């Protein structure tokens, strides 16, 4: 299909989607209206189970089975990305620091800021996971904060240090254990919001670290055999 034909097909179908979507949107309840049948059914349950953060209550109590599915999609996607990006036989991996990727020439201000922020952000991540039960936050958000925090070391210009503080096998087993614990909790003990938050936080954090590690390897270290 040539580019022109493709654009024409898009314009026709896009116009169709636009018309149908607009027709559907004007029949939706008004923006900001008071009719929220699902919300009204979940609220009393969340209050009865004494979970101040209703969203955590929905994710890990009332719809825990649904979250289990999402969680497994996350794990499957992360696993697939790691498998696709593995170093294949025709390639070889340089040792970290073999290039100029070692302690790079960044200004001291950036380096010190990176090292100082790292513990602060790690503590913030743990706080977000641990308090997801009562305040905005939870396993998903905190896991992302934790998983991305350690990459500050790379921004501070030190890839070898990042590779040292992030032993891949440990994160792989962390991911597997967290996923297993979450499946167990969701199937047998749904409603243990705090425990499930912790399991999800660990799993999301480990998955992010693993995926980012593979991307870092591909971007910095892997090369084809000469």
């Amino acid at each position: 299909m040539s580019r022109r034909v493709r654009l024409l097909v898009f314009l026709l179908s896009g116009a169709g989607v636009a018309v149908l979507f607009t027709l559907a949107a004007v029949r939706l309840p008004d923006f900001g209206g008071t009719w929220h049948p699902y919300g009204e059914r979940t609220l009393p349950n969340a209050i009865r189970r004494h979970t101040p953060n209703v969203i955590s209550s929905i994710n890990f109590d009332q719809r825990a089975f649904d979250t289990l599915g999402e969680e497994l999609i996350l794990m499957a996607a992360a696993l697939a990305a790691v498998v696709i990006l593995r170093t294949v036989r025709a390639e070889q991996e340089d040792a970290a620091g073999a290039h100029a990727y070692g302690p790079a020439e960044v200004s001291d201000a950036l380096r010190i800021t990176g090292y100082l922020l790292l513990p602060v952000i790690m503590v913030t991540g743990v706080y977000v996971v641990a308090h997801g039960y009562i305040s905005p936050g939870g396993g998903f958000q905190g896991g992302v904060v934790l998983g991305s925090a350690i990459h500050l070391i790379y921004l501070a210009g030190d890839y070898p240090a990042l590779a040292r503080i992030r032993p891949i096998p440990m994160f792989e087993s962390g991911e597997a254990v967290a996923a297993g614990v979450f499946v167990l909790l969701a199937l047998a003990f749904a409603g243990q919001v705090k425990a499930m938050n912790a399991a999800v936080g660990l799993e999301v954090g480990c998955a992010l670290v693993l995926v980012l590690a593979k991307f870092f390897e591909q971007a910095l270290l892997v090369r084809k055999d000469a």
Partner: protein
Amino acid sequence: MSHLPYLVAGWILLAGIYGLVTSRNLVHAVVCLSVAQSATYVLLLTIGYRKKATAPVFSDIKPTRNVVDPVVQAMTLTDIVVGATVTALLLALTVQVAKRRGTVDPDELRSLEP
């Protein structure tokens, strides 16, 4: 005003698909796909919004009925994090395509040769 937010979601969806259709680079296409996906976040959250209501968190206020719809928020929350890993998977496939075929222009990828 009463239906404008839904139309914004429709606009984001169409903009994302337009970028996908006219893309000359698979990385650009994947990012456009994630933009199209973000239309669902906007649509879900605007449908759940309620005027003069608070966030559905009762840690510092007495539980009330006057809150925005928490169900759509819970769905969006998980969707964002899961969507990020799916984007990572698509980008991993793109890196693999670049390795095997030496190009990331979808127009140059004709057949399914190995």
